[in-house]
């Protein structure tokens, strides 16, 4: 064990004084265990109190949280006491790891349990374990599959956004005056809160009687411009609104890639007499491939979380045509208080995302290796 550790040296190698007295080590261990027992005692008291076995206890679980934090600090401190310099190095990642474990892993485990229960907040029964019933309900729930189908459309729209963003990034990278101005302006939509965008664009500009976009559409010859009544147009409208906010992100990432292009190659191609299109097709696009794919992956990650504007503008309507998975699950929580079922749906969604992202990233990596 020791040999392995010495073989893979840290990039930043520290020669540390290795002797730590056994007394200090023992103190470190005692510290952790006593903090742990404090936490366990508080936990047991609280469980017994909630089961009404004993008459004293706390109003809520907060004390357990405090003792948990104390325990975490004790672990961190004891690392230093027991392992010395090496323990201090562990302290760099320790807080972040502990934080994520406490806020993600614990609730997720609890959520996994909820997802196999029948738990409706509006009924008085409380939660009941019901095995795979939720799962069968999901399989026969047309609205859930519909929302998954919508997500496929939403994700495909990313390709169009990418094309627009690439064009704008290329133009921004060319010899133009006032680049600073354009860059700031193009950034602005990304800064706006989706909630504000929902009202500014979704509710007011697309208002069918006197919104400016509706007026413009009428002027173009569309007699009755309605943006949210037919399923296809409603979905398209949501895509456009989401694209409007997120194209800036793609522009910025692609522009960063374009600015890092090797100048000599471009110059050499120009000297050889390549025209713009061949230069783009044979030089710029292949070199930009890694950046492009990263941009696409990041954009898809954001797209998978799409919800705010849908919840506020259409609430999934008409007939679920604009529903994203998230907005559908939220309605399951809020309108039907169907907690157990909603949680199962979200976990199935998470599993689908993990599979999809794994395949996507593997595919991207393979493509990059072949291109290189």
């Amino acid at each position: 064990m020791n040999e392995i550790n010495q073989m893979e040296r840290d990039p930043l190698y520290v020669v540390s004084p290795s002797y730590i007295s056994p007394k200090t080590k023992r103190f470190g261990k005692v510290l952790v265990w006593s903090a742990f027992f404090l936490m366990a005692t508080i936990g047991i008291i609280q469980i017994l109190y909630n089961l009404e076995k004993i008459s004293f206890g706390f109003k809520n679980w907060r004390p357990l949280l405090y003792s948990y934090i104390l325990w975490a600090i004790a672990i961190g401190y004891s690392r230093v006491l027991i392992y010395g310099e090496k323990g201090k190095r562990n302290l760099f990642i320790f807080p972040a790891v502990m934080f994520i474990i406490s806020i993600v892993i614990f609730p997720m485990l609890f959520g996994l349990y909820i997802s196999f229960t029948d738990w409706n907040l509006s009924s008085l029964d409380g939660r009941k374990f019901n095995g795979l019933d939720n799962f069968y309900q999901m399989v026969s729930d047309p609205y859930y599959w519909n929302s998954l189908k919508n997500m496929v459309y939403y994700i495909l729209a990313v390709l169009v956004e990418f094309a627009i963003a690439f064009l704008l990034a290329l133009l921004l990278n060319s010899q133009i005056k006032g680049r600073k101005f354009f860059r700031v302006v193009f950034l602005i939509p990304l800064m706006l809160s989706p909630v504000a965008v929902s009202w500014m664009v979704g509710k007011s500009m697309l208002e069918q009687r006197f919104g400016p976009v509706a007026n413009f559409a009428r002027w173009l010859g569309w007699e009755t411009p309605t943006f949210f009544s037919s399923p296809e147009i409603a979905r398209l409208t949501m895509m456009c609104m989401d694209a409007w906010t997120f194209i800036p992100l793609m522009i910025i990432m692609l522009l960063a890639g374009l600015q890092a292009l090797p100048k000599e190659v471009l110059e050499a191609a120009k000297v050889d007499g390549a025209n713009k299109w061949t230069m783009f097709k044979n030089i710029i696009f292949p070199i930009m491939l890694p950046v492009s794919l990263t941009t696409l992956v990041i954009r898809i990650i954001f797209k998978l979380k799409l919800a705010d504007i849908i919840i506020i503008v259409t609430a999934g309507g008409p007939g679920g045509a604009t529903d994203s998975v998230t907005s559908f699950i939220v309605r399951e929580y809020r309108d039907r208080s169907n907690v157990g079922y909603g949680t199962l749906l979200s976990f199935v969604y998470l599993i689908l995302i993990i599979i999809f992202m794994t395949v996507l990233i593997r595919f991207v990596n393979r493509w990059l290796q072949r291109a290189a």
Partner: protein
Amino acid sequence: MQNNLTEKIFIYSVLLIWTFICLFPIYWTATTSFKTAASVTQGLLIPWLDFEPAWKGWKNLGLSPDTIFTESNPREEFLARFFNTALISSCASGLAVIMGSFAAYGLSRFNYKFGFMRNPDISFFFLSQLILPPVVLALPVLVLYRELDLLDTHIGMILIYTLTVLPIVIWIMRDQFNAVPIELEEAALVDGATVWGSFFKIVLPIVLPGIASAFILCLILCWNEYFLAALITSTDAKTMPVMVASQISSQSIKWWNMAAISLALCFPLIVAAIFLERYIVKGMAAGAIKG
């Protein structure tokens, strides 16, 4: 030469059209906040020319010139929400930047081993949190918070927001630390500094711009976050997006009111975009180049 000119015209017209698309919604909202009911329903566009601007929306918010010094309940409410949002997002971003920088530094400088997990696995563990959709966490956290009495508190909001932005900080800062030459710290260590000492005295000043851009990016994301805030907060810790959203869904929408309030929600960030563009872009571009 002819060719060059058409190209120039093409470039500038596309750029200007996109500029128009970016700015028109903001222009429309800004002018709407000064409209009266009649000018709203006619869809008038240009102030003074088409319609006479009035302080309609801002008066209701208590921020117009004649109401600014008088008592106003909407303004109290608005300022309370504004303060909540500012407090929560800055604390969460601060916390995320501190923890994230430590973690990123550790990952770029030392080899760790936790059971089967080594550095690449730990990095992946952090970054995979980015993929996690908020809806998966929302309900379990909601129940957990109710048990811990953290619902509708600032602390609860700060913790969950820290979680959502932490992976982004780690992602940005890892590149920043990798770009700092290790020799600098080695020299400091030879001179007798401790690991943490060399981190604070030598590395931190170098990556400060990177930290600033990570912080600003987190601030923006937290400021705009709606989904989790809508679930967790109700009165005390309610943030601005939640307030605006609840006004949108209430039946009697007063256009000038909504316009004023939406604009107020966006205004700080528009200002940030104008003055801090360099940092924001740097933060977002950090991941792209590495590829």
